[in-house]
């Protein structure tokens, strides 16, 4: 996210989907693995040339490998992933790998075919076979190609090395196992990316739906206000409604999705505040909960707190005409937590004006029954604040 936040409804076409990013990540990992192996093959060929031990069959096969991989990586870099390359390329990749095994095994003495870099094609097919899993093809075909390469390897190096049969089988099996691991990893990453893309699409759809819902009344009201024949006596009511809709729209757009209980399913101060605000978005709310994140509550405490907050908000709504701002604040403190709700309305004299039934029974008594402390601070012309304190508890 940039600082300016990605607008909720913006579908930025310059941002790649998770699936595309996943394909590129797999291409980088397996591409580097394969390039590393190619460097080792080249080093083997050059060193044997320097020592005048060059085997021409090996040199020719090596040249084919180099030329093919230059072409292949050129296409992959241009397309940015193996998955985006033309479908026929996997076949050439397989043929080149197979020919190296066949040609070089015929050019070398059988004693050089096992356990030496002179027979570099084994290393090459070990690096090539895993990339079969990220070509645009089904898993069964990747595994079939891999098994075929393993069989070709086994059949070509077996003559003259009969005593090393178990080594040959193990080497051949390694080719298949590397491909299988690659295929499982690729499948997992692709599913993960696909799920992420689906969630993203779902989130965008839900957000669009939410905006359509919230815009419905606002557009009607704006249209009404724009009409020149509105009776003057109706303007005051329309302006009041416009202010409420403006508050509601700002609250709905700027508030994130509703907080949910924490990972253990325990209600939190945030989730309770979030739940209590439903239906009060038209009030001039300002929510300040950055200092009160992840504070767990006992379920009974959560019910009492939510009920109290709703009662207080109803009370504020009743006097909404005189309230410019309602601030709900939460904070973790050394010995517990605090939630406060303050408005800048007319306030009242606590000594002369007794608290109403709602404030006394539903708010104060309800919270005190859960062991919470409640303080009400108010004075005429100075707004009203209700402070609620509670102890920290382990997630329930």
């Amino acid at each position, binding site marked *: *996210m940039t*600082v300016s936040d990605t607008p909720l409804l913006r579908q930025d076409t310059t941002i790649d989907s998770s699936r595309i990013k996943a394909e590129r990540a797999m291409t980088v990992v397996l591409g580097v693995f394969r390039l590393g192996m190619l460097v080792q093959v080249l080093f083997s060929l050059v060193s044997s040339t320097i020592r005048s031990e060059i085997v021409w069959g090996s040199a020719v096969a090596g040249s084919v490998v180099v030329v093919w991989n230059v072409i292949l990586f050129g296409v992959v870099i241009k397309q940015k992933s193996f998955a985006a390359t033309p479908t026929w390329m996997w076949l050439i990749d397989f043929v080149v790998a197979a020919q190296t095994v066949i040609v070089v095994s015929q050019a070398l003495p059988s004693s050089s075919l096992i356990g030496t870099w002179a027979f570099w094609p084994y290393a090459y097919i070990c690096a090539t076979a895993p990339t079969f899993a990220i070509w645009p093809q089904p898993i069964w075909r990747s595994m079939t190609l891999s098994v075929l390469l393993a069989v070709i390897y086994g059949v070509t190096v077996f003559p003259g090395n009969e005593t090393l049969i178990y080594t040959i089988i193990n080497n051949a099996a390694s080719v298949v196992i590397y491909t299988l691991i690659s295929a499982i990893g690729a499948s997992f990453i692709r599913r993960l990316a696909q799920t992420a893309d689906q969630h993203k699409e779902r989130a965008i759809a839900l957000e669009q739906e939410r905006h359509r819902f919230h815009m419905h009344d606002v557009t009607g009201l704006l249209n009404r206000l724009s009409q020149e024949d509105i009776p003057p006596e109706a303007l005051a009511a329309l302006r009041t409604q416009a202010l409420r809709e403006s508050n509601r729209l700002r609250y709905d757009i700027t508030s994130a999705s509703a907080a949910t209980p924490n990972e253990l399913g325990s209600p939190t101060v945030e989730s309770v505040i979030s739940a209590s605000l439903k239906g009060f978005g038209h009030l001039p709310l300002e929510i*300040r909960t950055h*200092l009160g994140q992840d504070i767990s509550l006992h379920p009974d405490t959560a019910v009492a707190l939510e009920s109290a907050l709703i009662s207080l908000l109803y009370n504020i709504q009743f006097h909404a005409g005189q309230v410019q701002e309602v*601030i*709900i604040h939460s904070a973790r403190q050394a010995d517990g937590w605090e939630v406060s709700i*303050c408005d800048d309305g007319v306030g009242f004299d606590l000594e002369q004006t007794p608290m109403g039934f709602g404030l006394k029974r539903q708010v104060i008594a309800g919270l005190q029954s859960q062991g919470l402390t409640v303080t009400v601070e108010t*004075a005429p012309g*100075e*707004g009203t604040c209700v402070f609620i304190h509670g102890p920290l508890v382990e997630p329930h």
Partner: protein
Amino acid sequence: MNASRPHNRVAVIDDSSQTRESFHLVFPELEVVGTFPSVNALTATMSPDDVDLTVLDLQLSRNFDEQVLQGPAAVEHLTARGYRVCLYTDERRLLVLATCFSSGACGLARKSDSITDNQTAFLQVIKGTPVIPSSMVELAELLAYRDRLPTLTERQSEVLRGRARGITWGALARRLGISTKTAQEHMNAVMLKMMSVLQAAHLSNSATPGDIERALGLAPGDLAAPTC
């Protein structure tokens, strides 16, 4: 230029043509010397010496046109060229506001506040006094909580805690046994200290929330959007 108001020359940048056309009517104390739909239109026409204040709407493109300079990038562009910028927006997200003030904005007038309050804010910024919106009290409280405002006095901390909770000036003054004016002065001092921290952080307009939290010395997740 009006000789009686030599220091109230204002340029307005807003994509809404209605705002541009009505600005001088709504704020008669200001001498509107130019209105522009974009940042580039202003910089191509007027130098920083021609205006005392640039009033800047934060969102200048409704079509998400990436060619249009807006948000913190627009603030940075203007302040780097010497324009004094006051934001004119209802933006309240702490991440965005922190970056705007770090980029050199001198004030913010909320479009949802009264016209009188807006005009007072513009005039205050012209005089050189920063105007920081009440929405940013929470950021100041967060910075203080993480010991990033170590020079706060005990009284300033008390005022900050009270205002963060929404206690009115009158109630707060009575609670602390001081005058309303003194309480407001304490709060102004807090906001100026916060502004110094923001400006010293040099937040980039392309910074991620994590970058901003690190630059401000906050803990991971401190500035994440509240979930309620």
